[in-house]
């Protein structure tokens, strides 16, 4: 923000909430959010790359502190997965949980970076706007949730067979009486619809709300000055933002954890016969 300029809240927030979009075709749908994608890819490479780098040099003997740290993360995720997923987990589900947890945690953590400082750098890339929290972009959370959803259906069919899956659509959870088929199907449809929605919107809502609160506080700070409020707003908003950031650490970690757990739960449910 250029100093001294009075900004209306709408302007400030809109400025920070506009994506760095790139048209790849006709119509609103064919827009790529370059900011979300680039930050997500970068963080994925950093997070998974670090773990891969440690895993490659992992020794079965006495581990280094770095390896011990990665193993702690590994063990945490393995234990959580083991608690929910009762089938063979090492082949697919546990690594998926690891990917989700690390990636979402890092993407959520972008919320801690002070937006206006980051904007100074990103303005070189995009004058229009650059959002650095990929999980505050509903496209990202839906992408994750829908991928999990597709996996869920894939495993449902793989485990029970196509016939078994369709049978379950009509005969679970209320029973196989033909009178109940329609209710079963309706119930399952709602379930299949609500799963990705709640999965993705929970994460999106939390991160988006966190971002908005930061923006409101920073806007208060930006509009503070000697002439207006003797920098009182700057002090108060900084204190509040500090408190919010500390609280936000919890939200960031918790939402990453919840997203991972739901992923495992959904994949686990797909493996269960009714």
């Amino acid at each position, binding site marked *: 923000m250029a100093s001294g300029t009075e900004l209306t809240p709408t302007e400030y927030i809109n400025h920070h909430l506009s994506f760095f979009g790139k048209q790849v075709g006709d119509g609103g749908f064919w827009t790529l959010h370059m900011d979300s994608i680039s930050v997500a890819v970068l963080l994925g490479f950093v997070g998974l790359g670090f773990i891969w780098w440690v895993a490659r040099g992992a020794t079965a003997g006495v581990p280094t502190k770095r390896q011990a740290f990665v193993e702690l993360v590994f063990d945490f995720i393995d234990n959580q997965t083991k608690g929910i997923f009762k089938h063979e987990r090492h082949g697919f589900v546990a690594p998926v949980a690891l*990917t989700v947890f690390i990636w979402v945690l890092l993407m959520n953590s972008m919320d801690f970076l002070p937006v206006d400082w980051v904007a100074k750098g990103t303005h070189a890339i995009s004058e229009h706007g650059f959002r650095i929290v990929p999980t505050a972009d509903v496209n990202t959370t839906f992408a994750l949730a829908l991928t999990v959803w597709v996996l869920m259906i894939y495993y449902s069919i793989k485990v029970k067979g196509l016939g078994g899956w369709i049978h379950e659509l009509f005969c679970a959870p209320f029973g196989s009486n033909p009178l109940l088929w329609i209710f079963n199907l309706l119930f399952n449809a709602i379930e299949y619809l609500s799963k990705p929605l709640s999965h993705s919107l929970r994460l999106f809502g939390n991160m988006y709300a966190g971002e908005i609160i930061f923006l409101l506080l920073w806007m208060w700070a930006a509009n503070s000055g000697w002439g207006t409020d003797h920098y009182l707003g700057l002090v108060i908003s900084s204190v509040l933002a500090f408190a919010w950031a500390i609280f936000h650490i919890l939200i960031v970690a918790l939402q990453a954890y919840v997203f991972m757990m739901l992923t495992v739960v959904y994949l686990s449910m797909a493996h269960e016969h009714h």
Partner: protein
Amino acid sequence: MNINVTLFAQAVVFIAFIWFSVKFIWPHLLNAIETRQKTIADGLAAAERGKLALEVSSKQADEEIAKARGRAGDIIGQAEKRATQLIEEAKLAARDEGSREKAAAKAEIEQEVSRAREALREQVAGLVIAGAEKILRREVNAQSHAELLSQMKKEI
């Protein structure tokens, strides 16, 4: 909230990351951890076995020590018995030796006494003869009276 093609791009990225994790990260870490778990389990089992072996051998050692102690007691007892026996034997031998010495000494003394008595007798006989000579005032033919004289000697 504007859904657009970003969704598919992110999904592709997500799938790529999942593939990477499944293929390259998880197996490596799992392998390292499981190998270490096995090593530690083996080590613990070995330690347990070692502890057991130690217990057994220390029990054995205790038994051996007790046995040795018992044998040492026996040996000491035997030695003591033998020592008293030897002392008794020595005492007995000493007593025998003493009495023998005493007897020998007594015999010698008796011999001496009889020898002295003999010598005394000879002297008395001489004196008697000399006395008799003087009484008779004549020379007694020693040869003709030898028989008489020796008879007298015996009588004294």
